[in-house]
Every structure is written in C-alpha cells, then in structure tokens.
C-alpha cells in the first residue's frame, strides 16, 4: 500500500518535468540522431535518403574535427581546474562576514552578463590594442603583444576570457554550498582550535562536495560546448588554430551546408563527452555518499 502511494507520488512529481523535457530536448535530439544517418539537407527531412554510417566515416576522416576535438579537451581540462579554483576561492572570500560582500559578489558575477559580440569587442580591444601599447610602454613586448594573432596565445586569450566569466558563475554555486553549512559546525571547530587550513580541508571541503560535483560538471559541460567566446574573440583564428568543437560543428552545418555530417559530429561528441563526464559525476557522487 505504502509502496504504491510512493510510486504514484514519484511519477506525479516527475511527469510535468519529464513531459516538457522529453518534448523539448529528447525528441529533437533523437531526430538529430536519425538525421545523422541520412543525407538530410538542413531543411525538410522528407525526402532524405538513408546512408548508414557514411557520415560517421567522413567525421572520423575529418582532420579539422579531430584537432578541434583535441584542442577542446585541452581547453576543458584547463578551464575546469582554473575556474573552479578561482570560483571556490572567491566564494570563500565573499562568504566571510564583510560589510561589502554583497557588492563584491555582484561584481564577481557581472562578467556573466556580458555576452556575444560585445564580449568580443571589449576583449579584442584589450588583447589587440591595449597589450600592444603596454608592451611598448613597459618594454615587455615579449609578453604584451597582439595575442589574438598568435595561435598559442589566442588559445590562452580564450581561456582567460572564459575563466573571467566562468569563475563568477561557479562562485554562485559554491556560495550556495558554503552558506548552507551549519554555522554551529564552524563554531565548534573554532572552539576546538582548528587553524584555517585544517578547517578548510577537514570541515569545509568535505561539506561542500555536492557543490564540487555540480560545479565540476557544469564547467566541464560548458567548456565542451564553448562557442560564444570562441566566436566573438578569435573566430577560430589565426588560420583555424583556435577552432573548438562546437564551432567546428556549427561551421560544418551552416557554412559548409553539411547538416547531416554536422549532426553526426554532434552525436560523436555527445557520446564521448557523456562517457567521460558521467564517470566524473558517478565518482564524485560516490564520494558524497561515502562522506
């Protein structure tokens, strides 16, 4: 009897979400997978021919796709580390009892509100003009030069701009985690005479593992899907060296008009990333349970 009512609640609580989610995300995605096995032209699916795996074969032979894949991995790993360290530190800072903490929080969070072409405008100015001027003034033109025109530094400019945005984003999640720690526990540790380092590692970090699970996954998935900053800052340049995966997929579809191949790329991308990240979520979730 109790079991039945539980099952009923379970579904009653889930059905509204699932209904919308399935119709908005799952079905279009499945359609996308179906399209990837055809010669779909980006318009009406009616009339497309089944081509089995030939799109996928093309994907694996596409040198640009493979190098974009590798670059995206490098980018994602760096981003996960950098933005979580900065984001968590910021959250630690602004959850202390400071008078101006709310203003500080708002400021750190502000970069998230600047997107698209404006973001490119501002940062291109910094990297292409301000840096050149700084280089002349400081006689340090080996550090400060036009980063956007250098393949290596253009990549790092994307990292910097994304970290500038993403750190404030995960800070918000860490704040929620830190704010929900029972203050009594901290109080008790103070009475025990725990130093700040021990307090961080023995009390705060274990209690914020859920926030870490979430933030790691969100930074990972957002980095893998990175498009806006890539587009507005370097647009893949110089000479295609900073083209990340999503940009590669978008260009395959909308520049080269190879919609079905682009769908196959998205599917390959999804499967690989899903395998990696679900392992990550599974591992950290397991840690949460053990805690």
């Amino acid at each position: 009897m109790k079991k039945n009512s539980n099952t009923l609640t379970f579904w009653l609580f889930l059905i509204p979400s699932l209904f919308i989610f399935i119709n908005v995300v799952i079905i279009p995605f499945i359609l996308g997978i179906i399209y990837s096995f055809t010669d779909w032209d980006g318009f009406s699916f009616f009339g497309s021919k089944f081509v089995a795996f030939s799109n996928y074969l093309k994907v694996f032979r596409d040198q640009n796709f493979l190098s974009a894949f590798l670059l995206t991995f490098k980018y994602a790993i760096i981003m996960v580390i950098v933005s979580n360290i900065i984001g968590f530190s910021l959250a630690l800072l602004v959850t202390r009892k400071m008078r101006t903490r709310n203003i500080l929080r708002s400021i750190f969070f502000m970069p998230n509100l600047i997107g698209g072409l404006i973001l490119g405008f501002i940062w291109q100015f910094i990297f292409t003009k301000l840096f050149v001027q700084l280089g002349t003034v400081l006689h340090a033109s080996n550090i400060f030069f036009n980063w956007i025109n250098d393949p290596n530094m253009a990549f790092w400019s994307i990292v910097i701009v994304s970290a500038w945005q993403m750190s404030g984003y995960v800070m918000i999640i860490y704040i929620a985690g830190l704010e929900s720690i029972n203050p009594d526990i901290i109080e008790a540790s103070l009475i025990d005479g725990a130093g700040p380092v021990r307090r961080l590692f023995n009390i705060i970090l274990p209690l914020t593992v859920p926030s870490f699970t979430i933030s790691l996954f969100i930074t990972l998935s957002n980095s893998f899907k990175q498009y806006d900053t890539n587009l507005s800052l370097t647009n893949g340049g110089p000479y295609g060296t900073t083209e990340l995966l999503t940009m590669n997929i978008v260009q395959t579809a909308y520049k080269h008009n190879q919609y079905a191949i682009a769908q196959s790329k998205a599917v390959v991308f999804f499967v690989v990333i899903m395998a990696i990240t679900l392992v990550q979520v599974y591992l950290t979730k397991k840690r949460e349970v053990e805690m």
Partner: protein
Amino acid sequence: MKKILSLLISTILIIALVTGCSSSNNSKTSQNGTASSQNSKITITVMQSKTEIQSDLQTIIDDYNKSQDKVEVKLLGTSGDNFATVLQSQFSASPEKAPTIFTIAGPDTPKFQPYMAEIKNSKAAEMLADGVKDDVTVDGKLYGLPSAVEGYGLIYNKNLFKEANIDPASITSIDALVNACEKLSKLNGVVKPIAFAKETYFSFIHPFNWAFAVDPNYKTDIEKLDKGQITMKDIPSVVQWIKDMDKIKPYTNKALDSYDDQVAGFASGKYAMIHQGDWVQSVLDQDKPNFEYGIIPFPTGGNTKLAVGTATAWRVNKYATPEQQKAAIEFLDWLITSDKGQEYSADTLKFIPAYKGVKAPKAPLAAEVAQYVDKGQIIPWVYNNYFPNGIDVDGSNVIQKYYAGLIKNDDQFLSELTNVWVQDAGK
C-alpha cells in the same frame, strides 16, 4: 505561514499560466494571411537581412499599406548575424508559414532555391540591368528581384593622393599601385598605404574574387576546378593575382584590423586606401573624415573595372498562396518602379539601383559606383554563385597564413588554395 506561502506560489503559477496564454494570444493577431480572413485583405509578410534599413523600411511599408486597401504588408523582425539560420528554421518547419517575401543572396542562395517562386509578370523584372540578371537567374528563369547592387574596390583618400601627387586614374596596373604605395608610405601619418579587414569576406572572398572576375572563362574554369580536372596553377588570372598580392603585401596591414578598425584607420589618415565597398558609407559618415574620398578598381592584371554585384535580392516564397505571391510582386514593383518607391529606394534606403532608368542615391561612394555601372565598367561577384560553400572560412585561413609568412612561395599558396577549394567543392 508555510501554507500561505505554498498557496501563494501555486496562485502565481496559475496566474502566470493563464495570463501567459491570454496575453500572447492578444498580441499574436495575425502572423499569416489566413488569420485575417475576416476582412478580404491579403496579408503578406516580409523578412529581410539588412538591419540598418529595418526602421526606414517599416515607414515605407506603412505608407504602402495606407496607399491601398487590398494588401496588408507586415515587416517581421530580423536578426543580424544568424538571419539565414532563422530563415532556414522557418522553412524547414513549415514553408507555408515562412515569410512571403524574404531576402537572400550569395552563397546561401542555393539552399533556399527550392522555396523560391519564379518571378513572373513583374514590371521591375523588365527593367533589370543586364549585368545583375545573372545573379538571380537559374536555368533561364528569374528567381528574385535584386534590391540593390553594391560595388567594391580600393577606396582612397583624395587628399593624400593629391599630397603625394598621384593621379588615381593612372593606377591601371599593380606596378602603378606599388609606385603609389611607395609615395604614400612616405607621407606623414600614413602607417600603411593599403588596409584589408580581417573578416573572412573582407580578407579573402572579396580580394580573391578579382582573380576569377577578370578571367573571361571563369565559369568553365571553376567547373573544372570543382571536378579536380585543373588546379589553381592552371588558371593564369589566379597565378597573376598571387604575384600581384606578393607585390603589394609589404604595403598592407596584413589584414590584421577588424572592419571597424580598418575604416576608422582610413578616416584618421592612417591608411591611404582600404579594400572595401560602398557599404562603408554609413560608417565613414560617423567617423567624420576631413577629406574627400573615391573608389578605384583593384588593378590586378591591369584590371580597370569595379567589382559590382547583387548585395541581396527579394525572393518570393513558393509555398505562399497564389494571391499572396501576386500581392508580393505587386508590392516589390511598387517599391522598385513607382515614383514614390524610387524616391524611397534612392533617398531613404540609399540603394544603388539594379534597374535601368531608376533614380540613384547621392552619397559620394554610391554615386561613383553608379557611374561605373552606367559605363559598364564592372565585373561580377563570382563568389555569389560559383564559390563553394565554406570557402570563406577555409580560404581566409589560408590567406591569414600567407600574411603571417607561413607560406613559403607562390606554389604553396596555389596548392593550399586548390586544396581547400576542392575539399569544399567536393562533397
């Protein structure tokens, strides 16, 4: 207390749901012809890509709607960067609900070909200038009415040319251009004589277009190139273009400036010439240059003609009702050929006419381009119909490498261009 809270939330939810539906329904009066069938007016919708003219066009359409009572024209929202994507999503979902009139030109055109109606019984079509007819004709049938033509070349600073004692009319060969660059670079304040912008169209498509536009056999050459029967090396005008680029490269900004910076640099006298088209007018006006300027052809292989083509063209949706299609063509005829429409097109929208005997705008660059058109001193925008999709990105990667000094010699340049071309053409 908590009961009240949950009650409150659920009330808000219900209100949001209800008002959400009702208010959207109110505002969504008629999106399509069918919705306003209570009166006998035909509704047609227009979606166009030039955000700059959107509000002026609205004024013009309001005027048209007032001038007659059979047709109601509705201007839909536009979006700058992803216009083609938005349009595509509409056609892929339900073509009969997509805009009755839409604009598209250039490499995206073939995608939309299945959705374009043939233009018949149009006054404007009969007045179409010969040079641009090609741009909107497929298999001998007319599939669009160009809204305007645009021309590009080297826009030059007349004051600086005078100061350096250069006659713009004398620049009829690359050597003359190099000579001029030599003189210009000695002037005070001139950082580089020529500037290209780094956007894919400006750094690659437009400059590279010259290589084919001056080739009288470009159609067959491109056909063979697509099939891999010849390489770029076999096309003399392309080889010539590369040699010419080698000569002027030291005098350029190496296409490192954004479009905005390039034009601002020209306005401030940093660059004596920019490789651009008449579309810079509105930007230049805001940059307020204190000199006069004009436009000359890029003299690759001794070329003396301006590259002029259809910037964009009005298309009629094949899946609209026959009544809507007819109304659409009537509206376009009015816009292009009627006295009032001509006035609007030239003075408000500043369109350089693609039609014979139609009023031209007065802005300096547009007027010069119109003169070249009048004299027939024009060569086509080959890329509009003959460049493979995606070549803008891939080709600009090659030319960026070239400017960065990563391409050793002309042979490598030619073979890299051939590679990306064949790869993009052969899908």
